[in-house]
């Protein structure tokens, strides 16, 4: 079901056609210019792994990779992603093989309720790409833009450390 289809009959909504490649598949869709990338992924493409945890760009639950860089997808309009490559949490594993970060989160108990987890993992991936061998302090600073209310971050830090080790 498309969430943004007009059915009330009270006039059309302006829409723009965009093409975004998400997890390797190109999607062409007509969207409202104000539609956020987070909602485009969730409600138009039905990729609900990207979560929305706030409305002020603070929580990081919506983090995805846009042309290889971690961005908060609630802070990007879908139209701004026109022509871009997006990777979401659903696109991270290679078949049944988890990425090192995903595996680290599982092995080290880096999640509890799991709501922050997709964004946290996407941020951690980007962090390790920039700095494959981060110190504890660098890990903590690197994920300071992502909130987790369950874990006290300790096992998230351990998970990223484990992923860094596995990546060597």
């Amino acid at each position, binding site marked *: 079901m498309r969430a943004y289809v007009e059915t009330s009959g009270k006039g059309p909504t302006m829409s723009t056609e965009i093409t975004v490649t998400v997890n390797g598949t190109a999607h062409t869709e007509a969207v409202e210019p104000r539609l956020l990338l987070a909602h485009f992924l969730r409600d138009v493409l039905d990729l609900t792994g990207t979560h929305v945890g706030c409305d*002020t760009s603070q929580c990081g639950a919506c983090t995805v990779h846009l042309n290889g860089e971690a961005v908060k997808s609630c802070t990007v309009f879908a139209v701004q992603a026109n022509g871009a490559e997006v990777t979401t949490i659903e696109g991270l594993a290679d078949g049944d093989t988890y990425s090192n970060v995903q595996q680290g989160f599982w092995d080290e*108990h880096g999640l*509890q*309720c*799991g*709501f922050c987890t997709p964004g946290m993992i996407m941020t951690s991936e980007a962090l390790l790409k920039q700095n494959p061998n981060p110190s504890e302090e660098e890990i*903590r600073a690197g994920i300071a833009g992502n909130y987790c*209310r369950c874990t006290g971050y300790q096992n998230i830090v351990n998970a990223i450390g484990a992923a860094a080790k596995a990546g060597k």
Partner: protein
Amino acid sequence: MAVATFGESVKRTEDPRLITGRGKYVDDVRLTGMAHLAFVRSTYGHANIKSIKTSAARNAPGVIAVFTGADLQEELGGLPVGWMLPDLKQPPHPPLAYETVRYLGDAVAVIVADSAYQANDAVELVEVDYEVLPAVVNGEEATKDGAPQLHEEAPNNIGFDWEVGGGDYAEAIKDPDVIVVKERIVNQRLIPNSMETRGVVADYDVGKGNITLYTSTQIPHLVKLLFSLVTGWPEQKVRVIAPDVGGGFGSKLYLYAEEVVAGIVARQVKRPVKWIESRSEAYVSTAHGRDHICDAEIAGKKDGEIIGIKVDLYANLGAYLSTFAPLIPTYLFGLMLGGVYKMPNIDCKVHGVFTNTTPVDAYRGAGRPEAAYLVERMVSRFAQEIGRDPIVVRRKNMLQAHKNGREVTTGVMYDSGDYKGNLNKALEIFDYKQFRADQRAARRDGKLLGVGIATYIEICGMAPSAVASSLGAGAGLWESSNVRVHPTGKATIYIGTSPHGQGHETTMAQLVSSELGIPIEDIEVLHGDTDQGQFGTGTFGSRSLAVGGAALFNSLQKVKAKTHRLASHLLEADPKFVTFSNGTFAVEDIADKTLTIQEVAGQAYAAANLPDGMEPGLEEVSFFDPQNFAWPNGTHICVVEIEQDTGKVEVQRYVAVDDFGNVLNPMIVDGMTHGGVAQGIGQALSEQAVYTDDGQLLSGSLMDYALPSADMFPMMELDRTVSPSPSNPIGVKGAGEAGTIAASPAVMNAVVDALAHLGVKHMDMPATSEKVWRAIQDAKEAQRAARATARAAK
């Protein structure tokens, strides 16, 4: 094929779906024809509604309907209170206000539209004409003469006056040797902030008249019951599903207005409807926690003996009574005022007060963090006053270790614990002597270093139903389980608890596996769908394993008894000689006479050869109601360093020794402790809900409310003692709240310790840079003034 054991750190079975983005939270529910809701909320703290104009909103693109409180007054009923107190005032609590709004965010109307964007657009088009009334937000101010009044039913805004105690405090302090130390202790209001906000999808079946609510809740069965009671919807036609739930911390433990409204609106518009709370909305519409203003006294002697504590508490209830609001600042607070100490005299008075703020209810720890903070702050304050080491004073007053019940001053029975053992172990890990030497050296270098100790004990494992009911509970607080072993020997269980991060799918399967010897991957754990299983109470108060796990354990014993009898029959052996271990029945001394539990399960369904009177099938249900609560306890130690020039507090070390009784999955218990401690540190150092006098919430978004991030914490050092709880058959106590309870007093005791040599004796939370910096300046100023006076006197 792995059979799990009790005490093993089994990796979580929930995680594969959650690390790949395949979890299913409420916002991930998509139904054909689904419309979206948005609420019009009060922009004032207190106002009469003169009129609501909805025509522009009704004509907006995508809008299907708009309902005001007046439109749905009959259908919506009033929100319930689940805990009674003597003389409790229960003002009506309409899900949509129709005459008066009493807090910022009180909902007055709801929009139904094709999309969430359109629904939110239309909110802006609703014109509400308010007559603004004077407001009051402070729980103490609200009881004073001339304060604005919220409810006719509650004169002076007092919802209840309650007291508890033991011994005779007034008499005890008449002793001329007794020193009384007084302090005003404020436990600031907090905003829970589970990372998933609340949300609900209501699906009305027009043909059958059934309603299904998908809701982000900790208590699906209670939501079903309460929804049915307030709306009159027959209970058998109400189904509540809690899918994956992204945290709760107590804030999803009530029947909320939006759940009722969504159900009723779905029936009105004959379409499924979805409401997802925005974060900014959550700040005003989801229950807050804490908010105590308290005059406290502690009394004792020069040698460190503590003889009692006295408390006069104004507990802010917010504008209405949330479901469990009357319970939190009363029993869960007052009964804990003895802490782990003898504390022979306790005098506690509590005034529950209505104010023009968001309703206040349980937040992680709920009443117990407030009590532990007060007790531990006052004990350290007392030690400082008499010039003794806080550890010496604590040790002198601690209860002796016990294994099976110890009645304390407030009349409750602690189950088991070795309180000094916790303290000793924590001190050993920490190396207290070395620290004090380091601290002296640091002070010489102009550095501010402090250590804080906090012990705690908490009432958990809610609850013996008869006790709870005698104290005011509106529902039984037992827990339930259903174990279904399939003909192939695989199992599906349904538990009455409802996890939101606690990992029940893993731990409950682990318990089944360890008892029945069935591999953990052959066990499916179902929860949170009221149509899938028997009634359950839910997940809160660190109760899931202590009560729910015990219910599961009992079902498993029934399965074991039946399969044992059947196996003995099939093996043609006297049951006395049939053993069961690792999933296999064997006849003692006869090597080849064995049957696996899978084979026996198959035979139970084949029913070709059952013992006399045995029914076919293999499915058992248990409802477990404990005889006593469970009482986790422990000692936490925290070190802070304070930057002189900025007042910035940094937590350098954190050591926690907890007694959770037996531990089923240490990895999960440690994880929960980390999270709890982090929330306690958050309260101590950064979090605070701030209202203006007229009821505007200044800390109303994640931009303004300082939620802790990863760079605020050191690696926590955890250890345990184990005193199995006699309150349940598996000897567990509960671990969900402990960290939060111990951490805020540990941190604040450390902050005050770091500044004690400057003359600082107390500081309210949160210890923000500004507050600490001011305290340092004031203390230095006072020292300068004292020196000047001394010089003048010479």
